[in-house]
Every structure is written in structure tokens, then in C-alpha cells.
């Protein structure tokens, strides 16, 4: 006699619960492996002095230069900071325009709708398939190297040059845009595209005029978000000698002019917040559903 089969009882801890547990364990292991101690979070005497002095100026950022010798006719610090902020925006914008070109071209090539829409066979199919594969590989290569590593590579190869900064940001950002663009296009509903294929429209037209417009609002919103990231990257490039906010910040910190450091920090924060607000509002308007 066989007992009737009972529905299996679900496990008490599901895959997600287990994942959560594993993550906590991984965190603890990392803590051990890195040889960290809670005491390490408290600065030593020298560090404490720096901290006291640095945080002491948090609410009183400098309005004028704190350097010991200020040559006459030096513009006020805020003007300086705004100039650096402006250069930060310019580097980010120029790099972003390059990244956008890379992203659009590679993103279209790397989307699979692009070649599954057609009814290509034989050689045509092989060529489109190969293009798709190459595009994916190029995207992965560009994305996997961090913009600062690109910057260091380019600096080592050609020395300090504007082009190095722009290309350093444009390559990984272009790759990321391409990846996201291709995913957005592939995820967009294809009903209209297939209907138009049924009405005899060629694949390229369907792709461009039925699939891309559907993904466009998300693509625009994402581009804005990436620009906000580009601002941060552009600021950090200053630490490597490019004339953006990072350069001023590092110089002021090194000369222990902490008031100035706070001025630059606040300007950077304000810059990012303005673009964060802008891109957030645009996203809400564009992506309505």
C-alpha cells in the first residue's frame, strides 16, 4: 500500500533567506581576512589631530584663499571653486558626448533584436552574428577597466593631455551605455515591430522607427543618470593632475587648508545635487508608466 503523496512542505529558509545568511557570513569572513579590528576605526593621535582640525572647519568653509602668501589680485576662492566646477562639467560633458556616440553605435550592434528581426540566412546571418559578438566583446573590454585605470594607462602612454582625460571617461562610459541601451532595446515590447515586419517593412526601418522609439525614454533617462556619474569621475580625475575640482581639493588638503577643502567639497556636492535633481525630475516626466 502506498501512502497518498502529500504536497512537499516548502523549506523553512528559502533561496533568498539563504543568500542573506551567506552574505553576512561573507562579510564576516572578509573582515577577518582583511585583518581589520574595530580599533582601526579610531584614528591614532596624529590622525585624531587631523580629524579635529578638518571637521572643525566643516561649518566654516573658506571664502578667501588660506595660503600663507596670497599674491595680490588673486580672485576670491569661491570664484576659483566655481571655475574648477565649470571645468569639471566641461570635461564630463565632452567625455559624455564621445561616450554617447560609442554607446549608440555599439548598443545598436549589440542588441539581439537587431539581427533576430531579419530573416537572414547563410552568409548574411553569419556576418550579423559575428558583428553582434564582436560588439559584445568590445563592450565588455571597455567596461571592465575602470575610468581611473584608463586614465593612468593613457597618462603612462601619452602623458598629461586633455584627450587622455576625455578618452579615459568615454571608453568605460561608452561601454556601459552600449550595454544598457542594447538591453533596453531588447526588452522593449516587440509587437509593433513585428506588425510592421508583417506589413513588409525592412528590418533596419523597423528597428529604428518601432523598437528604438519605445526604448528611447529609458535611454534618455539613463544617459542623464550616467552624466551625473561622469561629473563625479571628472572631479576625481583632478587627483591625477587634470584641472578639475579634485586637483584643487588635493592641493588644499595637502597644504592643510581645510577651510578651502570644505569649500570645494560643498561646491562638488552642490553640483552633483543639481544634476541629481534635474535627472530625477526628467526621469519622472519621461518614464510615466
Amino acid at each position: 500500500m502506498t501512502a497518498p503523496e502529500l504536497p512537499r512542505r516548502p523549506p523553512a529558509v528559502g533561496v533568498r533567506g539563504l543568500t542573506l545568511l551567506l552574505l553576512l557570513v561573507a562579510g564576516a569572513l572578509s573582515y577577518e581576512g582583511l585583518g581589520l579590528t574595530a580599533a582601526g576605526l579610531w584614528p591614532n593621535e596624529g590622525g585624531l589631530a587631523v580629524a579635529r582640525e578638518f571637521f572643525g572647519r566643516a561649518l566654516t568653509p573658506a571664502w578667501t584663499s588660506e595660503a600663507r602668501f596670497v599674491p595680490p589680485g588673486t580672485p576670491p576662492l569661491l570664484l576659483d571653486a566655481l571655475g574648477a566646477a565649470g571645468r569639471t562639467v566641461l570635461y564630463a560633458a565632452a567625455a559624455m558626448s564621445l561616450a554617447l556616440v560609442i554607446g549608440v553605435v555599439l548598443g545598436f550592434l549589440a542588441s539581439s533584436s537587431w539581427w533576430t528581426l531579419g530573416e537572414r540566412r547563410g552568409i548574411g546571418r553569419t556576418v550579423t552574428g559575428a558583428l553582434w559578438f564582436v560588439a559584445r566583446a568590445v563592450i565588455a573590454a571597455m567596461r571592465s577597466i575602470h575610468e581611473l585605470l584608463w586614465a593612468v594607462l593613457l597618462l603612462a602612454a601619452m602623458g598629461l593631455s586633455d584627450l587622455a582625460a576625455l578618452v579615459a571617461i568615454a571608453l568605460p562610459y561608452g561601454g556601459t551605455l552600449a550595454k544598457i541601451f542594447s538591453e533596453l532595446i531588447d526588452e522593449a515590447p516587440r509587437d509593433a515591430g513585428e506588425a510592421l515586419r508583417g506589413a513588409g517593412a525592412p528590418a533596419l526601418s523597423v528597428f529604428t522607427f518601432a523598437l528604438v522609439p519605445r526604448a528611447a525614454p529609458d535611454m534618455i533617462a539613463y544617459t542623464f543618470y550616467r552624466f551625473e556619474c561622469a561629473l563625479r569621475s571628472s572631479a576625481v580625475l583632478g587627483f591625477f593632475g587634470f584641472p578639475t575640482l579634485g586637483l584643487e581639493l588635493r592641493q588644499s588638503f595637502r597644504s592643510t587648508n581645510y577651510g578651502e577643502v570644505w569649500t570645494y567639497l560643498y561646491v562638488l556636492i552642490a553640483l552633483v545635487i543639481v544634476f541629481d535633481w534635474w535627472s530625477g525630475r526628467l526621469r519622472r516626466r519621461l518614464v510615466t508608466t
Partner: protein
Amino acid sequence: MTGASFGLEGVSVRFDAFPALSDVDLRIDAGEAVALVGPSGSGKTTLLRLLNGTVRPSAGAVRVDGERLDEVSRRRLRDIRSRLGFVPQDLALVPNLRVVQNVLSGRLGRWSFLGAARALLAPPRALVREVHALLDRVGVAEKLYQRTDRLSGGQRQRVAVARALFQEPSGLLADEPVSSVDPARARDTVRLLTELSSERRITLVMSLHNLELARAAFPRLVGLRRGRVVFDAPSDDVPAGAFEALYDLTTEELLGDGA
């Protein structure tokens, strides 16, 4: 302009192991208006998609204006398709484009890529006039420059019809275009399509769930059940019992293979 004619000769379609259509013979002459009726899964959509070559038959031949679709070149197939308007069940409009652009996209099959880019981004006045006239005919001229997703279900249907008409089709295939609107709206749209068919000599083939509507609006009905043609007759000759037979699934069938 004369309407398209269609012919199915011993056509069967199998999707993997599932027989969607079995051994169907059907002739539809130029300028006819035919309704396909039958329950879900009876093969109506497959039959319609055979007619514009978006489904390939597993056996048999499909002819459009006498040409066998499996023998024409890819280029020629596109030409044939560009003369066959298709209004799918889900309408398949691009929601975030304006109505005018959705209608214009009906002619993508006849434009080169650059021509299409120009027509959609900066349409010449002559084209806009044509679109407006069509929208006027289907009753939504006011919506010319509205975003498509701001329209009601009935209005969107009309836009989909206008897009198909903008192809200047000789045949119009409609796959349950009225399944998602209220009965009054459905009647209006079906009437509109049959009127257009007779006034422009466009061959019309439409699949419908609503039998009363089909009988009232179409001169010829084709009944499908489990992939076979059960009846094919002038509407007045179809006995009332035939309709019930289409939908009456025996218990055995329901429990059996779930078709």
C-alpha cells in the same frame, strides 16, 4: 484598384507537435468580406498569418493573387506584404509616438531607410494631409498630433485601422481587432471596416469571437474548430445550430488533450 485574392490549398500548420491547422482549403476572391469564427485555439490567427506569409505552412500552398508565397523572392514577399494591411489583436502601435507617426509607419515597407527617416521626422505636408484624411474617415481626426498612449481603446483601434489603410492595401487582415472594447464600440469598428472594404474594393478577412456581429456584418462566414473548416457559407445559410456546435466542447474534449 482591385482587391487581393487568397487561396489555401490543402494547408496544414504544425507548431512542434501541435496541429494548429489541418488540411484547409479556402478561396477568397477579390473584394470579398469574410469573417472567420470559432473558439480560441481554433486556428483563426494562424490562418490570418498564413495569408500574409508571417506563418509558413507545414504542408500545402498559400497563394496571394495567384502567386505561391513559398516560391517568391524575399523582395517580392515584402512587396506583397506591403499591400496587405494587418490589424493585430493587440493593435501593436508604438505608444510613445504621436498618432501621425504611427499612421505614417504603415508605409515603411515602401520607403527606403532615409525616405522613412524624412517622412517620420519631418513629414511633407502632402503625407500629413493623407493621414489626416484617413483619420477623418475613421473618426479620430482630432487626435492627429496626440500621443498614442493617451487615447482610449476604441480610438487606438481606429488608429491601427488607419495605419493599415495608409498602406493603400488591396487586402486587409484583422485579427479580433475588437476583443478588448465594449459591444457598442466593437459594432462601430466592424461596420467601419466592412464599409471601407466595399467602398475601396479591399478584400477583408477578419477573425471574430462575436457571432451575432459576424452574422450581421459579413456576407460570408467561415467556421473553424480545432484547426479544421467546419462550415463555409453565406451568413444567411449558416444554421443557428452550427454556431453552437463550434463552441460546444464535450467533456471528453475538455479533459482530453485540452485543445
